[in-house]
């Protein structure tokens, strides 16, 4: 089981780029890296998923180095509404439906 480690909290200001790094030293060959976002009183929401190199969508980018032992979620030009908890997950190889959430990173975006 690939355990993930990410910062407990981060602060930023509106308009800045935010990079949240997650380490997953024991990631298996077939594991994918997935990030979720959770606002207070809501369920988590899928942001992005990747296997290697770089993935970009309309919300974020995900950078994964060649050794895949870490990944970085990049949020361009954050706004106040990006204040949330961000979870980095690595799917279990044999039961990938069982999402394993850690404690996440609490991002606070200030005006």
């Amino acid at each position, binding site marked *: 089981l690939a355990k993930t480690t990410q910062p407990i909290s981060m602060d930023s200001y509106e308009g800045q780029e935010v990079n949240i790094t997650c380490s997953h030293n024991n990631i298996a060959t077939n594991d994918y890296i997935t990030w979720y976002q959770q606002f207070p009183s809501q369920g988590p929401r*899928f942001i992005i998923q990747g296997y290697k190199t770089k993935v970009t969508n309309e919300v974020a980018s995900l950078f994964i180095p060649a050794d895949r032992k870490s990944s970085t979620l990049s949020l361009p030009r954050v706004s106040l509404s990006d204040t949330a908890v961000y979870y980095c997950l690595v799917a279990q190889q044999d039961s990938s439906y069982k999402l394993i*959430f850690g404690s996440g990173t609490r991002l606070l975006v200030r005006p």
Partner: protein
Amino acid sequence: GAGVSQSPRYKVAKRGQDVALRCDPISGHVSLFWYQQALGQGPEFLTYFQNEAQLDKSGLPSDRFFAERPEGSVSTLKIQRTQQEDSAVYLCASSPGDFLLIYEQYFGPGTRLTVT
């Protein structure tokens, strides 16, 4: 429907009472999941259904917890003889695919259960 819905949104139960939490997944979604989220923690997996079949219930904390999805759509999580440690937010999620490689799950808003 537009998304996953759960009811009730809030439930207060006296210790020892039985509770039933309902989840309406997105129409047509094959897979359904239940998670438990304690305050300040990430969600923890409880159980997984593919259609009406419960394929994994390894996360259910005790035999007081029971989940069903009899017709492959709506699901109910039942907790018997509630204890204070059962206080948490119970999240339901659904996904259109079958059990392999399901990374994108659609979560409902959760039911906040408080046991007094």
